[in-house]
């Protein structure tokens, strides 16, 4: 059983917490730098990336979080969390943790009226088609050579991985399908 730290300063951290519990692990909210040390794995949830970024910077959590994300622990960022992990952010540009070599565009699919649920082929995750919930989702514009694109939708990467750091532009935590989180936490055993 792993202790999974979930960044809980804004966004759908409760949904992630339920997903972690459903897999039999222990969710721990992360609100300050002190909360980071006890986590075996990290989740950066969906929400508003600009809000999270401001709180991270204002409260001295940005640099400790960046270090935690490069410590070799498994990390999963979904939607806004993926934006925080990216090397570069557009639409508009904003600072990011730069721990996953990709360029990502905020709200790349449009506004709430462009939000959608679809089924995608899960690639190396295995099994049948997987539900993917996109809410004002970002769009991964390009990825570096070290990044594995695990799942695509309409020619765009939607689940990527660079070593222990994973990013999804959709919300696995909003589906009952636990394959993405399970795969991320499986890497604890690798």
């Amino acid at each position, binding site marked *: 059983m792993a202790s999974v730290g979930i960044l809980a300063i804004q966004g759908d951290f409760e949904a992630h917490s339920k997903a972690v519990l459903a897999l039999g692990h222990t969710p721990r909210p992360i609100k300050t730098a002190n909360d980071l040390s006890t986590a075996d794995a990290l989740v950066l949830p*969906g929400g*508003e990336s600009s809000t999270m970024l401001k709180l991270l910077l204002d409260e001295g959590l940005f640099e400790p979080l960046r270090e935690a994300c490069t410590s070799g622990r498994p990390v999963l960022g979904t939607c806004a969390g993926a934006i925080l992990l990216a090397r570069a952010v557009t639409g508009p540009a904003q600072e990011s943790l730069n721990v996953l070599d990709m360029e990502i565009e905020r709200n790349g699919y449009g506004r*709430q009226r462009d939000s959608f649920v679809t089924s995608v082929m899960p690639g190396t995750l295995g099994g049948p088609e997987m539900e993917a919930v996109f809410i004002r989702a970002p769009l991964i514009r390009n990825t570096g050579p070290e990044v594995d694109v695990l799942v695509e939708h309409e020619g765009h990467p939607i689940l990527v991985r660079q070593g222990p750091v994973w990013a999804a532009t959709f919300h696995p935590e909003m589906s009952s399908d636990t394959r993405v989180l399970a795969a991320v936490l499986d890497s604890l055993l690798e």
Partner: protein
Amino acid sequence: MTEEHTPLRLKTGLAEMLKGGVIMDVTTVEQATIAEQAGACAVMALERVPSDIRKDGGVARMARIDIIESIMSTVSIPVMAKARIGHFAEAKILQELGVDYIDESEVLTPADDKFHIDKHAFDVPFVCGCRNLGEALRRVGEGAAMIRTKGEAGSGNIIEAVRHMRQVITDMREITLMGAEELMTAARDLGAPYELVRMVAQNGELPVPNFAAGGIATPADAALMMSLGAQAVFVGSGIFKSEDPPVFAAAIVKATTHWNDPALVLDATRSIAAAPMAGLDMDKLDPSEMLQTRGW
């Protein structure tokens, strides 16, 4: 428009993304930019903030389209807008415009004294106000994807929001203790759909996210509402009727995130060296001036 072709999950999904955040009322592009830079997770576009509506009177309507449009093209966070209770034509215009959420709001002058909007018929998600569980579940029954307390908008006085949040929680606690055979009578007494009452009795929580609004004027007010179980807060007049909007906005954002850490709520409060908006004493407010009694 076919019935419910946007899944409720996508509608409540955006509300999930707003949790732990502050949604700020704005009337201009400049205010929207201040809100975004202060860390608002969304802005609510309206023609006048509630305290001005209260002061100036007249019919309060949906905001001017050119202003909503310019806010939408300026900020990258979600943009909500208010429609009058029952005014589905205003709501259709806002949906066509592409706002991210519609607040069917008692702050505006109601357009219909009997019926709220059939929100299932829309793709855009709606938030509605409530004073108790029955009212919350009536709005969810009509298709609202987020519920907020009504409080007393534009008053700068938190007592009504506290009253409404506590009432919803007390009502929920009561029905979770009931036997199955009691729930139909409870549904009748609450004036709420039976299936939703059953759902609350089983889960002990509302079927959609539950936010606070109406009278939040300080970081402490925001922390209080979060402590009572609100999952996010709306701030109306509290920011742009204060003496220092950027500082109040940032401080309320910080207190909302760290509501259960008194040292950080103190930090947020200490950062303010200006007066909050002037408040109203509820006892001196004529019942006819109450905004919360609009809608049922």
